[in-house]
């Protein structure tokens, strides 16, 4: 327990002697446990699913090469209206606010760009001319010699675009001077919508997932298998792990947007978008994509889920063309199968069923992991920070500080935890941040008591006395010398409290005081229905909560056995 962490004394020892420091021992111990390894891998994969949710479950295509007639028409119309409007307003002289004019021009330029995107280079003359004409006009405004000619030029270009640049009927040749052939453009709709934070976590997790590949390579080739070097490289490796994703996020140029709804699928299905090639994610449903004819549809592999072509259930309590309670005929509502989706009665269409709005439960569960898993981690980070600070102050200084803080711990501890959290969340309002904060602010007492105990145990030991005798500042003694030796039980408690945090969040959401829609958490998926008829809504999210908590508890066990040999076997 009291070994030095970063092998300072062994630096003088010749590297050939393969000494083992604290972390060597811990890692070796952890490595020996099969359940620990399996749980860790499973958990890493669960986090991967949550982090890469936009790439796994989405109603946007990952890759699209298509002719989008509808959006071409829209862009042309907006470009024309924008250009005419701008010129007219300048012409009346009513509004010569340069900043406003610039803003309007850049809006028109984006439209021009998206029009050009779908044109063959030879057909781009008119839009290019329009852009130049607008430039000219604005320069004239700046110089104060705006002429009627400027407006005339823009107007005539707009008119020519209207007449000459209709999109040709797909498959037919363009009529020169009337229509133009649209060229397929490529885009990456999912990637383009990733925000920096998402890119950060995706890059981080890519490095983590590839760890079994790069780590042995680095150790063997760059560090030549030298234990001492490997040990010294631990901190730089960790820093790289954090720094590389930050770099990736800073370089990233995409625009952050919500992934709630897109029109790609409908466009392709209706023919508005002529897709030459479209790759959709594995689960081609968005988290907010609803379907009127499929509300509360059981998992599609279940016999009761079969729906006829007219949109009536074939088996089970909802079968028949008449409503059971009102005895009125039910209107026919055929299931609309869109592009990239599995056919109506395919077993994998909605493998976990749908909710009250016909949203795919699998997609919502994959996205829901983001909230649930994050709440556990962040609240734990917070409670460990508070607990460590309070505990080390109380344990190190003792005296009245200890009495005061211990009383505080006692007070907070006497509340039934879940109850207190429930009240606080109900009153501060449910949001992801609030829930993390509240869980952290209420549950720090356990860690504080552990740290306090360790500090009291360590305070009188020689190395602390020596550090004090050398005149080292209190803060340095606490954080540099005592705390590292007191961290083992904290690490164990932290692992368990991630599990507890996930449980608490899901309990809150279950009662309706948790995360509000539209981004679901696993707990809030239950709110959709508590009726036993909709068993799939109750089984699947709960199963995932259970699994996650179980994995964290298994990992906690492993860490405890490895870090705290005193408690070995005592489970």
């Amino acid at each position: 327990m009291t070994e030095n962490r970063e092998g300072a004394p062994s630096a003088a020892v010749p590297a050939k002697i393969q000494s083992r420091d604290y972390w060597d021992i811990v890692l070796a111990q952890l490595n020996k446990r099969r359940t620990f390894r399996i749980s860790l891998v499973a958990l890493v994969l669960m986090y991967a699913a949550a982090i890469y949710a936009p790439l796994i479950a989405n109603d946007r295509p990952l890759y699209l090469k298509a002719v989008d007639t509808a959006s071409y028409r829209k862009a042309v119309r907006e470009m024309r209206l924008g250009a005419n409007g701008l010129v007219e307003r300048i012409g009346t002289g009513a509004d010569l606010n340069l900043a406003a004019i610039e803003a309007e021009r850049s809006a028109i330029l984006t439209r021009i760009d998206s029009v050009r995107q779908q044109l063959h280079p030879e057909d781009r003359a008119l839009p290019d001319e329009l852009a130049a004409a607008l430039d000219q006009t604005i320069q004239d405004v700046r110089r104060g010699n705006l002429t009627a000619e400027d407006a005339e030029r823009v107007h005539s270009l707009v008119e020519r675009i209207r007449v000459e640049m209709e999109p040709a009927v797909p498959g037919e040749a363009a009529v020169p001077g009337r229509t133009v052939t649209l060229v397929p453009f490529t885009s990456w709709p999912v990637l383009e919508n990733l925000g920096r934070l998402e890119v950060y976590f995706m890059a981080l997790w890519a490095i983590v997932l590839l760890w079994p590949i790069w780590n042995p390579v680095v150790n063997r080739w760059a560090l030549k298998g030298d234990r001492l070097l490997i040990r010294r490289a631990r901190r730089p490796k960790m820093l790289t792990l954090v720094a590389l994703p930050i770099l990736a996020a800073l370089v990233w140029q995409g625009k952050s947007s919500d992934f709630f709804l897109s029109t790609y699928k409908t466009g392709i299905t209706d023919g508005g978008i002529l897709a030459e090639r479209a790759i959709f994610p594995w689960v081609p449903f968005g988290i907010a994509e609803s379907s009127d004819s499929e509300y509360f549809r059981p998992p599609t592999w279940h016999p009761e889920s079969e729906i006829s072509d007219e949109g009536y259930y074939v088996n089970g309590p909802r079968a028949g063309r008449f409503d059971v309670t009102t005895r009125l005929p039910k209107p026919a509502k055929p299931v609309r199968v869109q592009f990239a989706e599995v056919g109506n009665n395919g077993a994998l269409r909605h493998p976990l069923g749908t909710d009250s709005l016909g949203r795919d439960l699998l997609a919502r569960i994959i996205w829901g992991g983001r909230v649930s898993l994050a709440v556990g981690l962040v609240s734990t980070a917070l409670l460990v920070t508070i607990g460590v600070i309070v505990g080390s102050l109380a344990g190190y200084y003792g005296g009245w500080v200890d009495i005061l803080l211990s009383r505080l711990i006692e007070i907070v501890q006497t509340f039934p935890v879940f109850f207190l959290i429930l009240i606080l969340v109900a009153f501060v309002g449910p949001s992801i941040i609030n829930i993390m904060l509240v869980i952290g602010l209420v549950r720090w007492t356990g860690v504080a008591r552990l740290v306090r105990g360790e500090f009291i145990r360590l305070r009188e030991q020689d190395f602390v006395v020596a550090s004090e005798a050398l005149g080292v500042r209190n803060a340095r003694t606490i954080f540099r010398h005592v705390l590292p030796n007191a961290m083992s039980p904290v690490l164990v408690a932290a692992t368990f409290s991630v599990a507890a945090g996930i449980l608490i969040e899901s309990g809150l959401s279950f009662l309706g005081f948790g995360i509000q829609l539209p981004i679901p958490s696993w707990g809030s998926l239950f709110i959709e229905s508590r009726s036993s008829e909709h068993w799939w809504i109750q089984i699947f999210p709960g199963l995932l909560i259970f699994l996650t908590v179980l994995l964290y508890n298994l990992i906690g066990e492993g860490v405890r056995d490895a870090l705290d040999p005193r408690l070995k076997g005592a489970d």
Partner: protein
Amino acid sequence: MIPTMIGITLLLFVVMRLAPGDPATLAVGTVGMGAEGAAMQAESNMEDAITKFRKKYKLDEPLLVQYGYWIGSVARLDFGNEFFRPNVKVRDELWRRMQVTVPLSLVSVILSYLIALPIGILTAVKRGSVADKTATLSVFLLYSLPNFWAGLMLILIFGKTGLGWLPVLGLHDKDAASFTTFRYVMDVVHHAILPVAVLTYGGLAYLSRQMRGGMLEVIRQDYIRTARAKGLSERVVVYKHALRNSLIPVVTLFAGILPILIGGSVIVETIFTIPGMGLYAFEGLVQRDYNVVMGTVTASAFMTLVGFLISDVTYALVDPRIAYD
């Protein structure tokens, strides 16, 4: 204990009063919610009504003064009336509700001890056997099971849509008043099986893990080796020497289970619609009824404190080495 109680109530009071959502505006703005609300509605001037309401419930005084008033009445066991049913005293309602929750909690505490101790002891004694492995694994699974999900799954399995064996709503049938005493008791037991199961399994898993751990710790001690060396039978060694000492920490866990149970009762009572304290607190929260929330929380904190006290006393009882001045 009393300073702790004051600290708790003060903390709660401040949190509640600083929270957004003003009871005065809420009560005035609610149409048809009791005589007081209606009377205030009748006054054409809302502002006026709110000021009067504030004055009546002393909401216009400084926080500390409000707390003084409040703690004074709490000391007389008076939590005020419900905001939306002004003729119902929170104390009376709370008392009615506790008569539901406390027996349920006690039953589940007793049950979890009754089941957990043998499991813990046996798995520790037969360490490494198949029985130990299965029991430890199932306890571990139970330990990770979210209680609301367990409740829902039990309803799915045993309720109407599943096997249809057990009722899932409330604590007795609609026409329970006409039952004979025996049938009434049977009915309540029938209704209580699922809620008690959900309340129990968490504490059970926790206790049996602690029991096993404690037993293993004790079995390693020197005096057990001595006992074996003396030639005592394994029975005597385990049940007389080891058990007694490993029981000490487990008995005191009673206090730790109580807050878990009270927190859990919110969820369990909501799932099974049992009119107990947990459901009362939940309803109070939904309606932002300060008196109800304060009443239930104070009561549950008080119960927890009593639990701590009991466990301290039992600690001294079971372990003669510990004495309190």
